[in-house]
């Protein structure tokens, strides 16, 4: 196995420090960089959801589109538990609040707010996990697109139930919830005045993503990958399909729901419509643009897509007049046209996403500058049905002729890097 370059470890530490420093800088100058702060917050949250989705889609090979539903569960649980008690009546202005929820909140209000928020998010995560477990029993037996549409259906059911007027006293149905404490909520940190808007989500996202990375690199992660590669073979290796699919599904839903809670804190007010299928598609987009089966890809994808959509492309919406000449096309609405086109361009030219299915490594990073990436022209994946993100050549072998002895070792694949990092 390749020995890990100690230099690279230093680079990694350096990078982490740079990120931290930049975050702290932004944190202290947050009013000046409001836009950046908000886009970064959103990117961090979507990065978590994208990584959780990747765990399912990219690593376990389960095509699930239920993200919006799990995010909604997490967001609503967090919101309902963290809206200050005294503001509840005003929020549920239409139909009032169910008494038991009020009692529960009163009981919980002895907790300091940061603790309450963490508990609320965990509760949201656990409810989502429980739902995932329950619907997983029947649904995880379904194959690819059938699973996708069933999970999507689940998300729609969740949304339908949340918005039902019959539950107004509980979820506040159509009226949504507001007055949710934000990341910069004063009581969230020892520092006054909204400190933590960036650091809190940064730490939360790092912990969540880190946890998923640990799982993926563990033996369970390998079992997930085996299921992705070939269910039947995985089963023949003694891997209990349903149990492992469940694990992946529950874990992913748990994390997604916590990210949903973070989204509620980011938005400060939520409504059922915010959790429609479009949000799931957006996340899928991030995952695929980043590279299915690549964690760093998902994180990168979250930042690239969010920054592009919410920030960089914004100038396309602003009519621009240069020297009395109105630049054509530039008017409101054009941004989204450009965004869609860019999206297509990325997919058409980086068909395996920005990162493919490999992770960021310093080795690969430096190689990027040394040689231009060559993309081998490979034949069509013929079965058409495989969910595998990797191009599989139809020929059954790709090795040198055995008349010549096998070359010893050979240059290990990128996978090996990950391997080495394990130990």
């Amino acid at each position, binding site marked *: 196995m390749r020995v890990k370059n100690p230099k690279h470890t230093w680079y990694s530490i350096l990078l982490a420090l740079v990120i931290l420093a*930049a975050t702290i800088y*932004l944190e202290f100058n947050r*009013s*000046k*960089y*409001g*836009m*950046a*702060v*908000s*886009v970064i917050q*959103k990117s961090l949250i979507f990065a978590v959801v994208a990584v959780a989705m990747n765990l399912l889609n990219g690593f376990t090979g389960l095509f699930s589109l239920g993200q919006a539903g799990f995010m909604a569960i997490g967001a609503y649980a967090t919101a309902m538990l963290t809206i200050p008690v005294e*503001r509840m009546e*005003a*929020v549920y*202005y*239409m139909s009032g609040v169910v008494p038991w929820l009020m009692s529960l909140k009163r009981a919980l209000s002895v907790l300091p707010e940061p603790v309450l928020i963490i508990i609320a998010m965990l509760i949201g995560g656990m409810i989502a996990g429980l739902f995932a477990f329950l619907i997983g029993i029947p649904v995880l037996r379904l194959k690819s697109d059938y699973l996708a549409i069933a999970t999507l259906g689940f998300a729609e059911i969740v*949304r*339908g139930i949340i*918005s*039902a*007027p019959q539950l107004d006293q509980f979820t506040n*149905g*159509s*009226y*949504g919830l*507001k*007055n949710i404490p*934000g990341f*910069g909520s004063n009581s969230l940190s020892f520092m006054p005045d*909204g400190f933590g808007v960036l650091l809190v989500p940064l730490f939360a996202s790092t912990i969540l993503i880190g946890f998923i990375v640990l799982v993926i690199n563990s033996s369970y992660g390998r079992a997930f990958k085996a299921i992705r590669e070939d269910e039947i073979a995985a089963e023949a290796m003694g891997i209990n399909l349903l149990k492992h699919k469940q694990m992946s599904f529950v874990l992913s839903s748990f994390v997604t729901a916590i990210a949903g809670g973070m*989204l509620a804190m*980011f*938005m*400060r*007010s*939520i*409504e*059922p*419509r*915010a959790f*429609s299928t479009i*949000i799931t598609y957006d996340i899928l987009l991030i995952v695929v643009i980043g590279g299915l089966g690549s964690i760093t890809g998902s994180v990168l994808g979250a930042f690239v897509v969010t920054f592009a959509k*919410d*920030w960089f492309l*914004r*100038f396309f*919406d*602003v009519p*621009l007049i240069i020297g009395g000449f109105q630049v054509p096309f530039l*008017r*409101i*609405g054009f*941004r*989204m046209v450009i965004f869609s086109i860019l999206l297509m361009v990325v997919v058409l030219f980086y068909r395996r996403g920005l990162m493919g299915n490999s992770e960021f490594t310093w080795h690969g990073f430096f190689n990027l500058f040394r040689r231009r990436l060559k993309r081998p022209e490979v034949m069509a994946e013929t079965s058409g049905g495989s969910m595998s993100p990797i191009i599989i050549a139809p020929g059954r072998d790709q090795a040198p002729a055995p008349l010549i002895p096998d070359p010893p070792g050979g240059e290990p694949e990128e996978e090996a890097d990950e391997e080495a990092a394990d130990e």
Partner: protein
Amino acid sequence: TSDSSTDGDQPASGDNVIKIGVFEPVTGENGGGGFQEVLGIRYAHQLTNTVEIGGEEYTIELVEVDNKSDRTEAVTVASNLVAQNVSAIIGSYGSGVSIAAGPTYEEAQIPAVAPSATNPQVTLGNEYYFRVCFLDPFQGEVMANYAFQDGLTKAAVITQLGDDYSSGLGNFFLKAFEELGGEIVSEQQFQTGDTDFKAILANVKNAEPDVIFAPSSVATAPLLIKQARELGIEAKIMAGDTWENQAIIDNAGADAEGVALSTFFDENDTSSPLAGEFVTGFKEFLNGNDEYLNKNGGDGVAAVSALGFDAYNVVVEAIKVAQSSDSVAIKDALKGLSLDGVTGSISFDENGDAKKDMAYIKIIQDGKFMFDKTVKTQ
């Protein structure tokens, strides 16, 4: 990262610039109405684009952003405005996005004036949010009174599931109507994005109401009206302020005849010279630009345009009073402000809501929104 978003937006004229953010949906579900509101703001800006502070002339610059009628988007868009150092904000059409952006503005201590967001939640508990229009509870009450006074005692309510405006207004109507002694014979909900209402309407028809109250978006209105008439429903159809949009008449055609709605403004109300002046000027403004004309659906003056116009002037007035471009000062100025707008006199109560006690009822007649009467509540 650098604060690059302000690049390129710098105006040609010197340093004395004061920025006002325009936080409106121009795309998405409420894109149509949002744009009409923007038109009113742009027109007002065209008339008054400077303000004097401490003897110096400041150029007012509009910073327009599109919140796409989407709450998630709204937060980022709001931060975008904040980052661009706007002194005050106007917006938004659609209460949901206003509610979503509220905390951001509050934290940044920038006052926001909503032209047409009617949901109580927009201003409630937010010191920095103001509005120049009336509220849904009021509107619901107005419509209930109007219907009941006409001798319509059985009502059906159709609302959009998950939409706070629609559900809220429907609910306020429902409560007011029942209080008056009317009977609600049918309550129906539909999903956002639904385009087929026949099943719902068949239920409504079966309940034989005298009046249907169906507050909803501009996009769904013509569908509802036409399908109701096709099924042979003859009940009066009523809705709230959002329906005052030429597109509804263009789409629903003859079927739209007789539809009644409450609104904030009437272009044919000649009692106020200020309003008359605005109407003439605004029509000219519209006719001078094909895109405006096209997107506005003709040169009719929408109430939201008038409110946008008023909101802009309220903000400018507050700047004048404050004699400062400082947002907190502007907020304080707003609180005590009193001004005659084209939609009536405007001053704010402790919530930041304009004290308005009058609504216009309009009826669609001969393909036009015709003023029927004004309704005041006790």
